[in-house]
Structure formats: structure tokens, C-alpha cells
């Protein structure tokens, strides 16, 4: 292809002819002091709260504090090039970010600027970063499942589309892994995913992006990064910006999943801003409106009514606790805002139980309606059983002699725990989950040695796929377990038990090379 200069010239000429000259009227102020991501401005007498202002080098700020003699502005970008005495202009607009299909598969900063070196993001659609959450009339109950692909979660604390499920735990307990697995599991489900990294090491974020790319999840995922080195104002707006990008799809009838990793760092960034702005500190030095900061963010996750297109935005906020302290300020706040929490415990994690979910205090307040019928049937009492098993286990450690009934309950519990273990980046299809959990809760693993449980499970799923596809097809079709289907399950399991046993009778010590499910 060859460029024709005259054609380009004529386009430019047309532009110039169409150009209408107007006098630009704007409000200005002057920088009094600047530092640590904030500036105080003299002037700007008619600026409005949260209005965008522009510094001479093109950096954007947001009016944060309106005081009698000055305006406190948070600087969204490089504040080192702003000097005292610089002229600041108001723009009359609210902060907004680019949205649309062009953002899918991209890595952007909280203002929507590309960070992945894949060229500009070509879209003219924008949405305000702060947006009112839909009201009561605009919503409907959460009733569609949002499969995370993690057995323990889908069975015990199911998440529905439009739900906010908190992932909470100490550092290094696998919180991010849950978010990543949930994103990977959305492949082929049409759910758009957003991963908001707040205040994390850039290397960690790079690893997450690489993991998503390797799993093919970047095709439907947008990553919004505001790393540990970015100024506090950017860390503070990142979750709102990510939500605005997701809302675009929700209000167009699509389904989205957003992971905020993590909100405790956002609260810390907000605390920094508020203290610099001399807002009065409250508990743990957080400002009084830190609750509102999180509640207005998480309220934007919703399942919209059919009149509004029926789209949904599911969120998985992550909170990091210190030494398991869930009664600290920010954790209690976010626990009370969300529709349930998944609590991850370090001792479980180090005991090899991964995901390290504590079944006793993890709950899902609405997701039960969103489970498919089959899962509801097989996993109904699972959470309570597991919780009581933990108590029993602690008691059994006293070394007293146990009666047969207690021993069998313990055995069942050990095997269920073994069954619910799952590797990272290997989310499981919900029907496979139903099959495994069915086998576990009906006691078909009770006779299997503990260290063979994982092998039994993967072998069983392969067996069903290869030798009894009819059973699985029926399950997929009806999404329910009728008595008839249960009978077929029992038959299939009986056949498989024989195969499994014979394998060990014949070739002692050589593990079966059963394919992964």
C-alpha cells in the first residue's frame, strides 16, 4: 500500500475548514504546595467535588478537598514535575476511563493507558470512574451460578453471578490463586474478567499475567495495574476504574467477574491520602469514610433486572489479614459489606490442604440459590459435616479410644478433605465436581487408602468419560441427579472399584498412569 500525500492533505484541509473557533473559558488556580501525590491549589473558586483538573504538564488531578481558602487535589500521575506556582485548570468533567472491547486482553493503568506495549487502545467510549450503583428496582436476586472451578468453593460456598464473595486470609495462603483459578475457569463461559492489582510488587503482577496468558485466559481478561511504586492516588482509584470498565459490559447485558487484589492495600492508600489532606483520622488512623469507600465500590456489583439487560458483575474482593486477625477494622468492614467470605488459614495451607479454606467460618449468603440442582443434592450438608469433622479431629487427637461410629466419621472426613484438595491453575468442570463429591459423600472412598484418594478420583473421572459417557451426558443434560441416575452412578462406581482394586493386585507399586480429568 502506498500513501498519497494529497489525499492526507485534503483530509487535513477539510478538518481545518470544519473547525469552529470558540473561545475557551475555564477556571484556573495556582499550586500552593505539592508533594506525596497531593497538591493544594489557591483559586479554582468554582471547582466541584471530584472534578478533574489539569496541570501544565498534562497530568490529571481530582478535586478531593474543598476548603475555604484552598482546594486539595490528588494527583493521578507524576507529581514530581509539578512546581509551586504552576497554573491549574479545571476541566468541568469527572474522571473517566476508556471502556469497551478494545480493553479486553490488555494490561492498563487505572486511567486506561496501556502498559503492555501493544499499542494504543482505540475506543471512543468512556465511563465515569465513580458511578452510582443500581438501585433496588434495577436488580434481581442472584440465581445463576458463577463457577469458580474450585471444588471446595463451588460445593460449600457457591458464588452466584452478581454476588460479592470476599476472599480473606493471611499472607501466603493462596488468596490470589483463588481469584486466578476463578478467572481461568471462565473460559468458554462468555464471562469477561477483570483483575485489579493494587499495591502489589510489579514482579508478582507479571507472574499473574503470565499465568493467565499460559492458561489462555488473557483472551477475555483485562488487567488493571497500580503497583507498589505508583502513587497512592492511583492505587486509590484503581478499583473504581476497573469497576467502570466492567460495568460497561454489565450494562450491555454481559456477565463480568472482577477480582480486587487487594482492598486492604487500597484502604492503606486511601488512609495516606486522607491523612495528607488533613482529614481527621479515626480507628487505626483510617478516615471516617473508609467504610463508604468500600461499600460504594462493592455495591456496584449486581445482577441487573431483565429490563436493564440482565447483565451481572460478580466481585471477588481480597483482604489480607495480619496474624489471622479478622476483627481488625478493614476486614470487619468488608466482611459486613460482602455476601459471604472464604476464609483461608495458614495452618491448613501448610498442612497441604489447598485451597486452605476453613469450612467452619466460610459462608456464602446468597450463592446457594445459584448452585445447580445436582451440586445442591450432593454437597448439601458437606460444609457442616466438614466443620464438625474438624472439631471431632481435634478431640480425637487426645488419644482416647474411639468407638466404631466415630472412627468411621473421622475416616469419611479425612477422605473428603483429601478429595477437596486441588492443584493451582487446574479448575474443574462442575459436572466432574459433582461426580467426585458424589463418590466421596456416599462413602465410596472409605476403603481407599488416604494417599490413593487423588489417584482414585482422577481415575474415576477418566473412567466415566471413557467408559460411561452416557451417565455424564445425562447429568450434563438434566443438571440434576434423579433416583434413576443415582442408580446408574452406583453401578458405574461398582465397576470402577473393581478395576481400581485389580490394578493394585496385579502391578504392585506401579502407580496407574490415569490421565488428568
Amino acid at each position, binding site marked *: 500500500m502506498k500513501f498519497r500525500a494529497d489525499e492526507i492533505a485534503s483530509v*487535513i484541509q477539510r*478538518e*481545518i475548514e470544519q*473547525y469552529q*473557533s470558540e*473561545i*475557551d*473559558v*475555564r*477556571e*484556573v*488556580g*495556582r499550586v*500552593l504546595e505539592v508533594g506525596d501525590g497531593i497538591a*493544594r491549589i*489557591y*483559586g*479554582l*473558586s*468554582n471547582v466541584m467535588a471530584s472534578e478533574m483538573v489539569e496541570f501544565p504538564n498534562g497530568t490529571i488531578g481530582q478535586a478531593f478537598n474543598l*476548603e*475555604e*481558602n*484552598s482546594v486539595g487535589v490528588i494527583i493521578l500521575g507524576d507529581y514530581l514535575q509539578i512546581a*509551586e*506556582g504552576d497554573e491549574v*485548570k479545571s476541566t468541568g468533567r469527572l474522571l473517566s476511563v476508556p471502556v469497551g472491547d478494545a480493553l479486553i486482553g490488555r494490561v492498563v493503568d487505572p486511567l486506561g493507558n496501556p502498559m503492555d506495549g501493544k499499542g494504543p487502545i*482505540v*475506543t*471512543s467510549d468512556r465511563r465515569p470512574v465513580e458511578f452510582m450503583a443500581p438501585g433496588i428496582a434495577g436488580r434481581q436476586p442472584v440465581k445463576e451460578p458463577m463457577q469458580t472451578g474450585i471444588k471446595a468453593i463451588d460445593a460449600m460456598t457457591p458464588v452466584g453471578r452478581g454476588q460479592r464473595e470476599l476472599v480473606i486470609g493471611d499472607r501466603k495462603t493462596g488468596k490470589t490463586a483463588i481469584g486466578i483459578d476463578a478467572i481461568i475457569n471462565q473460559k468458554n463461559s462468555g464471562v469477561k474478567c477483570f483483575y485489579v492489582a493494587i499495591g502489589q510488587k510489579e514482579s508478582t503482577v507479571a507472574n499473574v499475567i503470565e499465568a493467565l496468558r499460559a492458561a489462555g485466559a488473557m483472551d477475555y481478561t483485562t488487567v488493571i495495574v497500580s503497583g507498589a511504586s505508583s502513587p497512592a492516588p492511583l492505587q486509590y482509584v484503581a478499583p473504581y476504574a476497573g469497576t467502570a470498565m466492567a460495568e460497561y459490559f454489565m450494562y450491555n447485558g454481559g456477565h463480568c467477574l472482577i477480582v480486587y487484589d487487594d482492598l486492604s492495600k487500597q484502604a492503606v492508600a486511601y488512609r495516606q491520602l486522607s491523612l495528607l489532606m488533613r482529614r481527621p483520622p479515626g480507628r487505626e488512623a483510617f478516615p471516617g469514610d473508609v467504610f463508604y469507600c468500600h461499600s460504594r465500590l462493592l455495591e456496584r456489583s449486581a445482577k441487573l433486572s431483565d429490563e436493564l439487560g440482565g447483565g451481572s458483575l460478580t466481585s471477588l474482593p481480597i483482604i489480607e489479614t495480619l496474624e489471622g486477625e479478622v476483627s481488625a477494622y478493614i476486614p470487619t468492614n468488608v466482611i459486613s459489606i460482602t455476601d459471604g467470605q472464604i476464609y483461608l488459614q495458614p495452618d491448613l495451607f501448610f498442612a497441604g490442604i489447598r485451597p486452605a479454606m476453613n469450612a467452619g467460618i466460610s459462608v456464602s449468603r446468597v450463592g446457594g440459590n445459584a448452585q445447580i440442582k445436582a451440586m445442591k443434592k450432593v454437597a448439601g450438608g458437606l460444609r457442616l459435616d466438614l466443620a464438625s469433622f474438624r472439631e471431632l479431629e481435634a478431640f480425637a487427637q487426645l488419644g482416647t479410644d474411639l468407638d466404631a461410629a466415630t472412627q468411621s466419621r473421622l475416616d469419611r472426613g479425612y477422605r473428603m478433605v483429601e478429595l477437596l484438595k486441588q492443584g493451582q491453575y487446574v479448575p474443574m468442570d462442575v459436572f466432574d465436581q459433582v461426580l467426585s463429591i458424589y463418590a466421596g459423600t456416599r462413602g465410596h472412598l472409605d476403603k481407599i487408602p488416604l494417599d490413593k484418594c487423588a489417584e482414585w478420583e482422577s481415575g474415576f473421572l477418566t473412567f466415566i468419560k471413557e467408559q460411561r459417557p452416557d451417565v455424564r451426558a445425562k447429568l450434563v443434560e438434566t443438571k440434576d441427579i434423579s433416583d434413576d441416575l443415582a442408580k446408574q452412578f452406583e453401578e458405574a462406581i461398582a465397576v470402577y472399584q473393581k478395576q481400581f482394586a485389580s490394578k493394585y493386585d496385579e502391578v504392585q507399586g506401579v502407580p496407574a498412569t490415569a490421565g488428568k480429568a
Partner: protein
Amino acid sequence: MPNNAKNHERIDTGEQQVGVMYARSLIGATEAAGQSEAILAEFDSFIEDVLDKLPQFDSLLSTALVSAEEKAALLDRALKSQASTLFLNFLKVTANHGRLNCLRAIRRAAHEVYDKLRGRIPVVVRSATPLDAASEKQLTERLRGMLRGEPQLVREVDPELIGGLVIRVGDTVYDGSVARHLEQLRLQMIDRSVHEIQSRRDRFSHSA
């Protein structure tokens, strides 16, 4: 206008607030005596010819180490022969309240209060080349009609504007410079190209 001429003077919002209070009282007193112009001129001269030239005197007045009585006595001895009674009294009152460090803010505010009282409005006019008398007169006429007051032009020359005028009244800026028009044209072209690329791409994906 001192406040606009010294555009990069440091502003302390606390002092500013104090300054407005003292300035209002000062102008109230001078208006009553009918000597506003004279007192303001005296004030300007005191700041520019005394405080600016004798920084040690300035810091002596500003410091809290010297008591208010001593400061008042010092002012009396130093200025009695030259200053008017009203201005000297004003300085002594300020000294008694320990606000001599705010004198510059008071002067700035006093000029603003007085200008407002007389219906004068400071207007900063920036142009690429110095304005000639005819266009300046024309501009003043237009501004007079627009502002309902007497515009006080402060002229600034900034070749980076290329052409046109940038007029600033209070916090509001009316920007009619060629530089801004070019910038706006550039943004418009980018905008249109983005639209163009988008519509082309949509066409592409629909046909595919």
C-alpha cells in the same frame, strides 16, 4: 496591581484570611477619613521602600521575640516624622495583635478591597506581541461592557501564544490564543481518527 504583577509571590492561605480582615478595617477607616488613595500609597511605599530594602527591620517586626509594646514604640520612633497618624495607628494596632508578619497579605487584600469598592476589576491580558494603543482601547471598551466595572489592564507578553489573546478575570480565563486553537484542532483530529478506526474495525468484524 501588586498582586498580579508579583505573580509568583508566596501565598499563605492563613495569612490571606487574616489579611482580608485587617484590610477591610483599614479601608473602612481610610474611607471615613477620605484618605484611601494616600494611605494605600503610603502602605505601598512602606512595604517597598522600607521593608523590602531593610530585611532586618522586617524580621524584627515579624519576630515574636520582641514584645508588642517594644514594636509599637519602635514604630513610633522610626516613623513618627514621616507617616500619617492614621497609618501609624494602623501599624500599631497590627503590632498589638501580633500580626505584623501578615503586612504583605494585608496590603494585597487592601488593594483588592479598595478596587472592588471603586468598581475596578483587575484583568490580566496576555498577548503574543505588545498591544497597540488602539486595540487596547477597544479591548477596554469591550471589557467595560462585559464586566460592569472599570477594567484595570495588566499586560503580559508571551510569544508562545503565537497570536490572539488570553484574558484572565479573577479565577476565570478566556483563552482565544492561536496556540490553544491549534491544540484543539490536533485533539479533534485524533478524536475523528479514533472514530474512523473504530467504525472501520466494526465493519471489518461484522463482515467476517
